[in-house]
């Protein structure tokens, strides 16, 4: 797709993000965050991340890639364990990539 369209989509993302951050600052007294809103927001990051991760690990949908031979599945499981143990983003990425290359090399 064209650079102009990329720039347009990115600018729209930036504008929307800015308006979200400005919302209550600009709204004065009449805008106030209710408890239901805050409670729902807590679940937005895990839900979005879960929805983004799953198709990356199973590109062909649920049925096709559940076999033990999927390098991406093994790498994801290793990353999950390392993230859990180290709570470190860099260590998670490094371990996941090493696992991916390892399984790819082993299957090749």
């Amino acid at each position, binding site marked *: 797709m064209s650079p102009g369209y990329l720039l347009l989509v990115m600018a729209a993302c930036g504008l929307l993000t800015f308006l979200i951050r400005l919302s*209550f600052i600009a709204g004065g007294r009449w805008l106030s965050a209710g408890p239901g809103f805050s409670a729902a927001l807590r679940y937005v990051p895990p839900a979005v991340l879960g929805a983004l991760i799953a198709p990356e690990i199973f590109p062909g949908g649920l049925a096709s890639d559940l076999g033990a031979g999927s390098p991406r599945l093994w790498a994801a499981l290793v*990353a999950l364990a390392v993230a859990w143990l180290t709570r470190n*983003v860099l260590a998670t990425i490094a371990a996941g990539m090493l696992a991916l290359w390892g399984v790819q090399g082993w299957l090749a």
Partner: protein
Amino acid sequence: MPTNPDNPARTEFLAGVRAELPLLLGVVPFGLIFGVLGLAAGLPAWAVVLSSSLVFGGSSQVVFAQLWGAATPGPVIVATVGVVNLRHALYSAAVAEYLRALPWRWKLLLAYLLTDEAFAAAIGRLRDGPTTAQRHWFLFGTGFTLWAGWQLATLGGVLLGAAIPAGWSLDFSIALTFIALLVLGVHRRSEAGAALVAAVVALLAQGLPHKSGLLLAAGVGVAAGLLFRHGEGDSA
């Protein structure tokens, strides 16, 4: 660092800078990663660098790169980035009362800089510190420091990424980043449940047109999280 008692704005600004610096330890590596994987996802270098000032939100920029690389329609990308950054409305609500008396140019500037780490480093000062006419300079100090660190880290990541050969399956590092962010952000069973439900729905909905399954899955995941929350017997 020397502070001048005759210039309270400068004192607040420098205190904000100092409060933000330790947080850069986590932000700079993430910026480097984003620079590398933005290129791996297929974005041109100028777009990776520009997104750090246009969007200025780490996770949402990674999401943007991933969705653009997967040829997702523009409106779906914009909606997803909006959902990812929706939590910033909470920060906006939290700082609004401290910025109410400021002129518009300050409100616009501080809204632009209002990100996770800038908010986290400044809210304590705003809420519990002395009520002065210059306290917004503290938030400006945290936000500006984060902004500058993020721009430099992204630029460094793009230079680094350009030196990494293709064929390393480096695009998978995006999914790995998401896994790390997910594990680090989940503190309750109901949050893990929301992620799991969203993941299953995303797989079931993969055939939906325009990749709209992503937003559907996120919505169902949030609803599931709210349901699971009642099971935890905790309304916090």
